């Protein structure tokens, strides 16, 4: 450990931590020295360029920038001398000379204006220089470089904090200027609109467009603010809503959003979390309960703006009665197995818990599932089987300690953008980033190895890597002996998988496979991240088993910088799964078939429970077609868009005798409903969510819900009461209190604590402990504490390309659109950046067809056909295409293959055979 430093600050003897700057010590001592280019926030390096923080150091010829200068023992620093103050004022006066008039300020609340005022520098004696024009080409941000002071905070924001590498400081001297790419308009640059630069800008040169007028005037003025959690991906960024009353409507609005200091995001956000909140105010919001008009055909046949074409408005009383009665009737007529429910990973833990409790105790079966089935069911199955726990063993922020980082089958810059910033930072620091994905992606540029293997060939590649580790004895013998079982069996199994034999199958050369195997195995700390490229296959569980084996044989779990981390897709897919929205398990993954565990829940809930696992998402759809399921309650899910072979799924929805859908918009699924119940959007309610890092976090209500919309927990409770359950929860905190009785994972995590601390990681050993980031240092969660090696065989994807359907179709997401687009397509910025569907195709294939990028093609599979515009993107290889599934006009899931992984029951979204035909 380095020693503390003792020095004199303004005549007082003070101590500094090693690495602490004079500015930081002074602040600690109660003196805030003026600063512009220094941002006192995590991730921002001091750059010392603005020179507004100059101080005098005794014995030195010139002044020192206190933000970048660290004290040494015995140093005498004076912050308030005439000389230092004069220099600081002159710096401000030089800058003020070229600023817009205060009345025209882009940010009336800017740090720059605050300091100018505090230092009493209102006017400048210097002649003004020529200033640049505004750039309003981006839909989210206004660029007014006439206020820019070249402090380069935005450059650091873009390059060092987010590592998006779009902003640069070009030219030199007084010509130097902030540029996007090659001095392109921001809206035409490679900017991904994370908005970090806007959050960092101290002058208003970069502003959210929502708070400047058309002349660029505005300010970060809010009536109030509320800290909460981003509702999009599983990263779980903490945010602050800045709320202002709209003078025209009189309603409170989210004027803009800033990142808050969460453990998963340290103030960072992505385009969705920063600019994707206006969906809550979209005119298509459902504000009244709706009851289906008689004789209206069920289908994707409603303009979501005009639901009254097929529905009539009803009171809550009536709608709830109709909804509950329909469910009750089916239960009574066809039995309890004739009902099923889909909960949602987009709702809170409390809502998920209530929903599964409703299905289990009210419907009377375990037919409850949610979209985890479609994303990581196979990963969870493998993790449960091999290490006894379905959650991550380490948070993604653990990469700060990693030497080797493997990212396989995941595209985090689009799907987990803030997690990706940590990966990119680690790579910049010097960690080896090994990316394995059939598609190229933005991480490729930061990777030391990019293994673009053949789609679906995961097992062959991973077995070959493990073969090398075994053959070259790079495994951790001691770790294997004391922490695992089944290695001998796996070792035998791997004999047939030499890299030389596998290279033709996976498309990666044997030497590359060997290099990567050696790097992963011999590094001090290696960590693995994976996404749906691994899980969404008919062999998804096998893929995950291989990754687990890889970590087990090398001992790369349980230590800082090591671990296994399936990147969870939705904001609360971890929490919804934990809360029991899974047909085989009660909350905390307690098996429904286990008598002892079931007895515990029967006790807690005061009713008999079904000992048989229920049906999964796709099985439920099939059961509807088989006339076994007659009624459903769907909360916040959109299977009409998200299920494989969507036409088949839509057919099922149409076939139901009774469908209750609870959502905030007239989703494609709601179009099939008999009763639609308008719910509250995330910023309109309280509740906790659990992110991919196992961090349980508090979401808070910031706005009132529009019209008669109600919180999901309330609606579920009203249905429950109407089907005979005597529920009487007063709100989410009551539900959370009950959950604590059901779920040991919530030990030491209370509602009050979350209100206070915003976020606590589970497992949490004590009420004052932040929770355990890295688990399984000593033993795994299996009954005997040992990790299990489960060998995996190479199985081809279910549907191979042939002469009729020669392309491989992959589906997934794009940065701006999340899940089925229900929220993101109704957000102005997200919609503007990605308004219409495209199919990504390699330029070689495009030229083969003799078409141009932007032209429309017909993509068809054995299940359906869509028409869609082509986007030229060589991230996909010739012979492959990629379609995001968020667009109803060209719904990718009309094409996908519903075949399931036998264990995880997850469909093969990442591989099916397709045909592409140009349209005249």
């Amino acid at each position: 450990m380095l020693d503390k430093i003792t020095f004199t600050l303004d005549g007082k003897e003070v101590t500094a931590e090693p690495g602490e700057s004079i500015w930081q010590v002074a602040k600690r001592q109660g003196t805030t020295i003026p600063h512009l280019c220094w941002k006192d926030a995590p991730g921002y390096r001091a750059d010392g360029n603005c020179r507004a923080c100059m101080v005098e150091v005794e014995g030195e010829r010139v002044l020192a920038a206190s933000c970048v200068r660290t004290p040494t023992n015995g140093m005498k620093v004076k912050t308030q001398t005439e000389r230092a103050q004069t220099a600081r004022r002159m710096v401000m006066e030089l800058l003020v000379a070229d600023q817009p008039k205060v009345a025209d300020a882009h940010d009336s609340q800017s740090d720059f204006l605050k300091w100018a005022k505090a230092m009493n520098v209102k006017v400048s004696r210097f002649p003004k220089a020529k200033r640049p024009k505004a750039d309003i080409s981006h839909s989210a941000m206004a660029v007014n470089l006439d206020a820019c002071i070249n402090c380069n905070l935005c450059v650091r924001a873009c390059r060092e904090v987010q590592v998006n590498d779009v902003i640069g400081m070009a030219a030199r001297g007084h010509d130097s200027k902030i540029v996007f790419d090659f001095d392109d308009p921001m809206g035409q640059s490679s900017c991904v609109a994370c908005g970090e630069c806007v959050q960092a800008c101290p002058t208003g040169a970069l502003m959210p467009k929502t708070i400047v007028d058309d002349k660029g005037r505005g300010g970060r003025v809010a009536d109030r603010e509320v800290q909460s959690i981003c509702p999009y991906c599983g990263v779980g960024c903490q945010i602050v809503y800045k709320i202002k009353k709209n003078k025209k409507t009189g309603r409170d609005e989210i004027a803009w959003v800033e990142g808050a200091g969460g453990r998963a995001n340290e103030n960072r956000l992505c385009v969705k979390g920063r600019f994707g909140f206006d969906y809550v105010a979209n005119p298509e919001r459902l504000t009244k309960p709706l009851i289906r008009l008689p004789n209206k055909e069920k289908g994707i046949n409603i303009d979501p703006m005009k639901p009254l074409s097929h529905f009539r408005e009803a009171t809550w009383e009536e709608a709830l009665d109709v909804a509950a009665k329909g469910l009750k009737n089916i239960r009574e007529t066809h039995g309890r197995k004739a009902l099923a429910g889909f909960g949602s990973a987009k709702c809170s833990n409390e809502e998920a818990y209530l929903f599964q409790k409703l299905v289990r105790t009210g419907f009377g079966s375990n037919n409850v599932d949610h979209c985890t089935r479609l994303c990581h069911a196979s990963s969870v199955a493998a993790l449960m089987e091999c290490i006894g726990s379905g959650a991550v063993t380490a948070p993604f922020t653990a990469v700060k300690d990693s030497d080797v980082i493997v990212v396989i089958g995941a595209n985090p810059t689009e799907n987990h953008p803030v997690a990706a910033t940590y990966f990119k930072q680690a790579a910049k620091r010097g960690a080896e980033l090994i990316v394995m994905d059939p598609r190229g992606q933005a991480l490729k540029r930061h990777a030391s190895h990019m293994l673009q293997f053949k789609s679906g060939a995961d097992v062959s590649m991973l077995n070959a890597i493990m073969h090398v580790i075994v053959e070259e004895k790079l495994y951790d013998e001691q770790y294997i002996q004391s922490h695992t079982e089944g290695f001998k069996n796996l070792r035998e199994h791997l004999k047939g998988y030499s890299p030389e034999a596998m290279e033709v199958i996976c498309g990666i050369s044997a030497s590359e496979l060997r290099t990567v195997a050696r790097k992963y195995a011999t590094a001090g700390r290696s960590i693995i991240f994976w996404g749906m490229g691994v899980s969404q296959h008919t062999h998804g569980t096998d893929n995950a088993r291989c990754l687990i084996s890889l970590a087990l044989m090398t001992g790369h779990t349980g230590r800082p910088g090591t671990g296994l981390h399936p990147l969870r897709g939705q904001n609360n897919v971890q929490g919804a799964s934990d809360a029991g929205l899974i047909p085989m398990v009660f909350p905390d993954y307690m098996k429904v078939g286990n008598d002892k565990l079931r007895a515990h829940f029967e006790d807690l809930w005061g009713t008999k429970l079904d000992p048989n696992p229920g049906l999964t998402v796709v099985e439920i759809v099939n059961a509807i077609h088989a006339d076994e399921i007659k009624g459903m309650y769907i909360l916040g899910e959109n299977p009409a868009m998200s299920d494989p072979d969507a036409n088949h799924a839509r057919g099922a929805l149409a076939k139901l005798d009774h469908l209750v859908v609870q959502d905030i918009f007239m989703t494609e699924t709601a179009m099939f409903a008999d009763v639609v119940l308008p719910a509250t959007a995330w910023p309109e309610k309280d509740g906790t969510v659990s992110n991919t890092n196992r961090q349980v976090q508090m979401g808070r209500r910031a706005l009132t819900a529009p019209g008669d919309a109600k919180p999901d927990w309330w609606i579920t409770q009203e249905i429950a009461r109407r089907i005979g359950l005597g529920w009487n929860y007063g709100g989410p905190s009551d539900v959370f209190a009950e959950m604590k009785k059901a779920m040991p994972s919530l030990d030491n995590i209370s509602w009050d604590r979350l209100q206070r601390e915003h976020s606590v990681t589970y497992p949490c050993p004590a009420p004052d402990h932040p929770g355990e980031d890295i688990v399984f240092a000593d033993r795994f969660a299996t009954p005997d504490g040992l990790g299990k090696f489960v060998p995996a065989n190479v199985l081809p994807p279910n549907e191979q390309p042939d002469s009729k359907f020669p392309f491989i179709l992959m589906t997934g997401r794009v940065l701006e659109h999340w899940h089925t687009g229900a929220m993101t397509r109704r957000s102005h910025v997200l919609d503007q950046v990605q308004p219409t569907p495209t199919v990504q195709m390699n330029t070689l294939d495009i030229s083969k067809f003799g078409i141009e990028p932007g032209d429309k093609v017909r993509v068809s599979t054995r299940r359906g056909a869509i028409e869609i515009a082509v986007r030229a993107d060589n991230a996909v290889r010739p012979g492959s295409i990629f379609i995001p599934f968020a667009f109803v006009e060209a719904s990718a899931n009309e094409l996908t293959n519903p075949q399931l992984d036998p264990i995880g029951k997850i469909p093969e979204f990442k591989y099916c055979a397709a045909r592409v035909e140009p349209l005249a």
Partner: protein
Amino acid sequence: MDTHATKKKFKPVRPGDRKGGKKSRPFPKGRQVQPSALKDVQKLLKGKSLARDLLIEHLHLIQDKFGHLSAAHLAALAEEMKLAQAEVYEVATFYHHFDVVREGENAPPEITIRVCDSLSCEMAGADKVMKALKDKAPKYVRVKHAPCMGLCDRAPAASIGKNYMGDVTPAKLLKAAKDRDVKPVRPRYQSYDAYVKAGGYKVLKELRAGKRTPDDVIAELLEAGLRGLGGAGFPSGQKWKFVRAGQGPRYMCINGDEGEPGTFKDRLYLMSKPHQFLEGMLIGAWGVDATAVYIYLRDEYPAIRDVLLKEIAVLEKKGVIQPGYVHLRRGAGAYICGEESAMIESIEGKRGLPRHRPPYVAQVGLFDRPTLVHNVETVYWMPEILGKGAQWFIAQGREGHKGNRSYSVSGRVKKPGVVLTAAGATALELIEACGGMLDGHTFKGYLPGGPSGGILPASMGDLPLDFGQLEKYGSFVGSHAVVILSDKDHMRKVSSNLLRFFEDESCGQCTPCRVGCEKAVKLIAEKKWNTKLLSELSTAMTDASICGLGQAAPNPIRSVMKYFKKEVS
């Protein structure tokens, strides 16, 4: 298959905004790499390392081949080097010798004439040359102004492509342009064999054979009083000590970015006796056990680059150095890269922004390793000092001033040039050594150390010009670039020239220098100066700028206000 939902003709209505009619981009975000441009770049970089620090070298390859840097080529280079487009663009636009041409802009004409307009050349009529050229230049010629080319002894100077010429006239330049006379002219210089015959590389061999330890050599250099002749005057032996105190690997960098207007001594030594320089350099590398040596040579010296490339190859062939041990790096037109930490940034392939001190480059230098940085002339004297002994060097000096100095003298003297004489020479002595003042000119004042060193009046012509002597007069000797001014020179014009230079050459990193220079140029253009504001500005620039450029930039202003006040009030 159930087609219940699809048999209806209803076309799904997209959620959200359906009035806009905007379509998604047919490409991913940002500028796409064009296959043909990528092919060009791949061809140029074939067999070459793609390491980040080679960015400027690779930009030169493209600029040399195509005469400019098109957006397409820059995007391809970024792709090939796995860099962000912004990273490439900001570097390319920082250096004046790169012509970035964005989409929709015109490429520059085939030939570029750069006319030096730094002080000595301006005094010799550069503005007239410039004007005549602009009037007469054909379409295939572009005329630009440029800072000092190290040809002040033959002012006015200009370059056509890589052909740098002194004593230019518009006619001479236009003829050269017509003849496409754009290649550097290799000078006559002492060959390896001639240098060895005269006893060259003997000292290096002895040191490498272990006849003396680095500590012995440090002691000898300190005794001799050899100091950094790039302008800082730091004792060379001391520098070695500091660098050696750091853990290896260590590097050595040669600062060959002689850019202080009026300075041309390094050019002289490199052009005449490259091997004496190279031996001195290798002595330094030996002294700190350098893993590799990087010579950073200004782009204005292409003839010297040819010489060094050739002679480094000779050293490799002769086994004096391992192949690849010495890297020759090209500047790209940026005075600031003469500042040692900016130079290191530039060698690393980045914009030449000076770093904050501490840490000093001796501790954290090239690639964040301890680095010995020496100026060309500093190492040039090392073989002689170590061969002949410290006392020999001391004897070159005079009372109170150890060793010799190479004064680059230009301006209003009859025979401008490098005067090698005892340290502590005076301006009057140097005028004398240069054949006296030009006819019709009366000595009025002088720049003792280029623009940074301020201006002294003729009445101070008898001050000894050495390190540490002039500071009390608000001046310093720096690189010993002495520019003699006469009664024909107006001090407002002189100081404007100097400040324009600083304005052009400021890296732009810190406020006092970036904004200060720009405002100062405007303020001193006034007939009557606002001396109060200029004084305040000068103080802030000196107190608060990051590096020597901004700290010294107001020196000419202060000098004029102090010694030539009448001319601006």
